[in-house]
């Protein structure tokens, strides 16, 4: 999804759990458990086995596991078919694949550029199948 070639990626594997604050300038992938805040100028990927309870700020965000928390992204937020997410998304673009579970409100660049920021109802109950 990212145009740039990433030299570095930090992968938090399945049996690793972290509580606290992560900040940095490289891509992060989470297959384990993480709680707190995550901040990176690069991409964040939450793998199938990953569970994250954190406020996230990243370039692009891909959720294939579980994410509870708000996302602030400069690029694309994508929730894949195995992804489950609860929280608000602020992003340039959002992709919610068929089968994904999502609850929260969305502000994209397109909607905030419009007359009024359009928010998708908070109650798009879990299991909702929204296609881009």
């Amino acid at each position, binding site marked *: 999804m990212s145009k740039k070639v990433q030299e*570095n*990626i930090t992968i938090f594997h399945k049996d690793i759990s972290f*509580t*606290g604050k*992560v900040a940095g300038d*490289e891509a992060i992938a989470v297959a384990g458990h993480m709680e707190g805040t995550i901040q990176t100028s690069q991409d964040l990927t939450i793998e199938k086995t990953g569970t994250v309870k954190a406020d996230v700020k990243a370039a692009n965000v891909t959720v294939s596991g579980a994410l509870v928390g708000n996302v602030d992204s400069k690029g694309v937020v994508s929730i894949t078919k195995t992804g489950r997410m609860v929280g608000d998304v602020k992003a340039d673009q959002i992709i919610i694949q068929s089968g994904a579970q999502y609850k929260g409100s969305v502000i994209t660049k397109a909607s905030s550029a419009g007359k009024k920021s359009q928010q998708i109802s908070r109650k798009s109950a879990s299991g909702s199948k929204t296609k881009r």
Partner: protein
Amino acid sequence: MPVTTIGRSLILNGELQGKDGLSVQGIVKGKIEIDNIVTVEKGAVIKADIKAKDVQIAGEVKGNISASGYVHYMKDCTVIGNTTTARILIADGASIKGSVHIDI
């Protein structure tokens, strides 16, 4: 065994736990508890107590280190803190300040 490598530009502030191996190139503050090997690479800065099976240090550590296996202080590492371990190896050039307790 998958090794989680904390990259050079990352700063972690908190508690890191797990069963996998851990390698740190960046900065970690808080606490590290790993049931496997912890490697602190050259250039890495740790301000945390480390509890692990094996510990290998080439970077900088400020905190107490406790290992059930071995502790390996490599050349040019800096350690400020007490060490408790079963086996220890201190390379020539390692700077260490603190007590060493060898548990048999």
